[in-house]
């Protein structure tokens, strides 16, 4: 049989799009990772506060209405990490001096516009929560305006936490939805990407809390992490299935990710995806945490959370890069 040939020669010389679109470098995956953790931390700490206040469940409070150490540190880290993430977002702008333009308009159809407003809505409430859970220590400093703010709002911590738990979900899911709206890039064009980034953000946040929680609080976060990892594994499965069973655009893009030999830092996408993300970042920590939960003591307890964090970071890099190196909508 003779081959039917198509040969295309183009004089296009736009360095951002030829030979592949490559517009977002390392800043964006890093922002998505930090944003995901910030959202996850907000979800977990808010729920811990609500569970303790309403149902008396969870690690012991510090006294004076201050929750356990992990919740207090997590509440502070959430806005800090998001701020850091936004800094990377800012650094990626080709014209950072015009960043104000995001905030002089509302573009209802633009996910990036919605996101930039959510991020702004996030800060005051997340900072307030961080202040309220640390009020014992803030009061010692005796800063007039801070004291006043705490006086006004300290009886409403549960309400603040309730709203924050929702905003946390919004931020976590937004990091994936941002990409999934770009239907011109078939790898990203999956409605489950938001879900994937949300659970991944929650598991990374739980892993981070495991790192700095005192020993008696660790098991709580290990359990949260194990559950999130388990759900993430299912969602990753759905993401892959949705891709390979889709039309040529989507299945081609998915195969590019899960079987592609395109390289990232000298290693093929396929190895990154199955070896680093799925095996090292999901399956092994899940087994380790399961064993830990079953009472089998592992000598290096930090291995599981570190692997989870690495997996979460690799996921963002892979998705952002593989989405841009696969050719556009056919």
């Amino acid at each position, binding site marked *: 049989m*003779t081959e039917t040939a198509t040969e295309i020669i183009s004089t296009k010389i736009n*360095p951002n799009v030829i030979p592949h679109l490559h517009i977002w470098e390392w800043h964006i995956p890093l922002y998505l990772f930090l944003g995901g953790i910030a959202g996850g931390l907000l979800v977990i700490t808010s729920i811990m506060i609500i569970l303790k206040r309403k149902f008396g469940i969870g690690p012991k409070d510090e006294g004076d209405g201050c929750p356990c150490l992990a919740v207090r540190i997590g509440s502070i880290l959430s806005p800090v990490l998001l701020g850091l993430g936004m800094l990377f977002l800012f650094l990626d702008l080709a014209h950072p001096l015009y960043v104000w333009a995001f905030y002089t308009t509302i573009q209802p159809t633009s996910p990036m516009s919605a996101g930039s407003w959510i991020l702004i809505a996030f800060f005051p409430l997340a900072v307030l929560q961080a202040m309220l859970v640390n009020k014992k220590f803030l009061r010692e400093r005796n800063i007039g305006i801070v004291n006043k703010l705490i006086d006004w709002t300290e009886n409403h911590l549960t309400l603040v936490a309730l709203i924050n738990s929702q905003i946390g979900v919004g931020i976590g899911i937004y990091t994936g939805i941002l990409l999934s709206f*770009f239907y011109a890039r078939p790898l990203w064009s999956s409605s489950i990407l938001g879900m994937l980034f949300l659970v991944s953000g929650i598991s990374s946040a739980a892993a981070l809390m495991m790192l700095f929680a005192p020993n008696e609080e660790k098991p709580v976060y290990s359990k949260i992490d194990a559950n999130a990892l388990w759900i993430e594994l299912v969602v990753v499965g759905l993401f892959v299935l949705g891709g390979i069973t889709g039309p040529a655009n989507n299945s081609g893009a998915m195969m590019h990710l899960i079987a592609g030999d395109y390289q990232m830092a000298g290693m093929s996408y396929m190895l990154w995806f199955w070896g680093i993300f799925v095996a090292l970042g999901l399956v092994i920590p899940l087994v380790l945490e399961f064993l830990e939960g079953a009472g089998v003591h592992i000598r290096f307890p930090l291995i599981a959370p570190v692997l989870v964090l690495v997996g979460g970071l690799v996921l963002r890099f892979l998705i952002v890069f593989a989405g841009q190196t696969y050719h*556009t909508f056919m």
Partner: protein
Amino acid sequence: MAKQKNYGMVIDTRVCVGCSACVYACKSENSVPEGYCRDWVVQETNGTYPKLSMENRSERCQHCEKAPCVTYCPTGASHYAEDGTVQVNRSRCTGCKACLAACPYDARFVHPEGYVDKCSLCKHRLDQGLETACVSVCPTKSLNLVDFNEPDQEALALMNGKEVYRQKEHAGTRPSLYWISARNKPGV
């Protein structure tokens, strides 16, 4: 509100010889920086040897009627102009590159000065009643500027009875560029 004008193009690939005059005219008219382009020429060969067919076509931003670059722009910098073209307002563009990711035609680039740039259909010339630089310079009349609200008879006659297509129509972008396929050439 109906737009006053609805500019687009009818591009006759039967007569395009791939000379790239449009590309150079655009570069000098719009001071496109070196290493970038707002329009370009594609040469596509198709078929099974020895029955091969070739099409030359000059490509650019499609000035979509449902443009994803406009939909996803967070600042309103990318917008629809009254004359049916899609424009970038440089004094609102942050260079976030959402529009580059959104465009299925890869028509945009980041100008070294920090804003996003692409074919403007020479809006500054249209406003003065002139044709675009590429159209005015095309030696074979392959490029035709058309106001689809009031298409002239010549343009309609050109498309009449021919195989005409738009690119990636299934993307739902309603592009304003129409291509008369080279398959209309005798002997193909």
